[in-house]
């Protein structure tokens, strides 16, 4: 089984974000990490390879810093990596990002492509499904289990409110992976060492540009959301805070 995992580098969860001068994006000087659902997608690909043999390839787009995500994936066991490297990839909408990925893998033959179900920065939850449509492949979203069958795969989709559904589908296919589908592994020291010698192919913007169009949507303005609720701050030493909270619980919320 040959599997491609699409991964994204996003700002760290607790990193304070600052707006850029034009108020259309964040300033780049924050700490980054791998988008969490993508880490689960990678883990699932590694597990499938352990069961069925094959190859795991990881791909990302973004500036030089994004290579870190690929290095970590290689250290965890991915076989090789593809980096669409250019600052301008950050500004592409989901449609163009998917087009760039499709162009970068046009000479490859994957059985499966995994993405995380959504990213922690945009949160569009679209790139995987768009990529499937561009490739003419079937897809399934929010996947919690994958089994190989005689005719393709059987996947378990998570629906809302605790419901699930099994879906039989042919391959090649695109799956968007839900966090929690598996338990993540850590990179080993040997893995980190080996990662340095694994192939990492760089793709420039110029190589894929002819397939891209104008973005079809535009961020007019990025801003700190306006508060809709009045929040009372409880301050003081811990013991003092505890007393104040109990007073609220008893006299205002009446739960004591």
């Amino acid at each position: 089984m040959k599997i491609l995992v699409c991964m994204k580098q996003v700002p760290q969860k607790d990193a304070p974000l600052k707006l850029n001068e034009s108020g259309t994006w964040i300033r780049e000087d924050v700490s980054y990490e791998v988008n969490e659902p993508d880490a689960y997608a990678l883990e699932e690909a590694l597990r499938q390879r352990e069961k069925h043999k094959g190859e795991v390839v990881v791909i990302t787009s973004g500036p030089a810093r994004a290579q870190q995500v690929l290095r970590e994936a290689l250290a965890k066991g991915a076989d090789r990596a593809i980096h669409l490297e250019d600052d301008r990839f950050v500004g592409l909408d989901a449609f163009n990002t998917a087009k760039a990925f499709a162009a970068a893998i046009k000479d490859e033959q994957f059985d499966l492509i995994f993405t995380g179900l959504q990213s922690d920065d945009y949160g569009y939850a679209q790139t995987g499904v768009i990529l499937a449509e561009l490739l003419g492949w079937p897809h399934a979203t929010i996947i919690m289990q994958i089994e190989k069958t005689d005719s393709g795969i059987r996947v378990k989709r998570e629906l809302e409110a605790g419901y699930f559904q099994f879906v039989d589908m042919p391959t090649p296919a695109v799956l968007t992976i839900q966090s929690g589908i598996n338990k993540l592994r850590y990179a080993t020291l040997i893995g980190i060492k080996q990662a340095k010698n694994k192939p990492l192919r760089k793709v420039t913007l110029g190589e894929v540009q002819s397939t891209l169009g104008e973005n079809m949507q535009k961020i007019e303005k990025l801003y700190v959301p306006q508060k809709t609720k009045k929040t009372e701050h409880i301050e003081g030493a811990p013991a003092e805070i505890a007393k104040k909270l109990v007073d609220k619980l008893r006299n205002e919320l009446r739960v004591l």
Partner: protein
Amino acid sequence: MADTILVVVEQREGKLNRVSWETITAGQAIAAATGWTLEAAVVGAASVAGEIAAKKVAKVYAIESPKLEPYTPDAFAAALKQFFASHPAKLVLMPHTYQVRDFVPKLATAMGRTVISDCVGFKYEGGKLAFTRQMFQGKLAADVSFTSDSPWFATFQNGAFRGDKAEAGPSAAPVETVNVDIADEVIRNKPQEVFKEAKQAVDLTQAEVIVAVGRGIKEQKNIELAKQLADALGGDLAASRPICDSGWLPMDRQIGSSGQTVAPKLYLALGISGAIQHIVGMKGSRAIIAVNKDSEAPIFEIADYAVVGNLFDIVPPLIEEVKKARG
């Protein structure tokens, strides 16, 4: 001809998903602001068309084909693409459900268009329409506009509009059936029956007090501290998704879009940053107390009482004070 807004409502096994009313409310608000005509459509299960026709919409389309049951992204995208070929719309609105997420990016791509997904509002200023959506897990918001030709696709987050504010129409809107033709080979996925994983052992929807933990709890052994607080308050223990993903608490204690939706008298959030997926499951709580060391955590946006600090400093004396108060 006036520009048209089309709301595509969601049905599952012939039943209207209630979140569809919120999208109708959103459509009515955008129609009022822009002067565009509001219409609605249901894909499959024409039986719910009548329910929608009672609302203030100009027309309801029942898009029908035997291939639309059970749901597949292939059939739904093909059906709507055919529908738009004969019924062009300027703006297409849908609820941001798991089902819509599954087919709408495919539909838009097949039509060479884009989706602004998971919006929480809209702005119409100087003849320009923009959609507001949360970014970076709710830490920032963005106004996003379309730069492509129509149809424009937008989806709204659960709870972004009030479903009970959907205006009724003066008389029932006409319902038109539109039959679509979907070839067998279009549908590649074979979905099995929908099922519920082993009965949910814990029903948090009835809980009056919920103490919920997030990543800030750091280690599995620290869950005990939150449990002691929940016990002292006579409440239930719950968690955000990462805690359940790690196996520190069972999945049936998860609050959020993929877990339970709750509205207790008190929701005490410990070390929960407040990602959108969590917030949609608890923002209806009567009162929210949030304890988090990050003063910029989005949970504080919706908290009634905010404690910026280390939960490990604050929870132990709080347990003692609650015990004292209860005698």
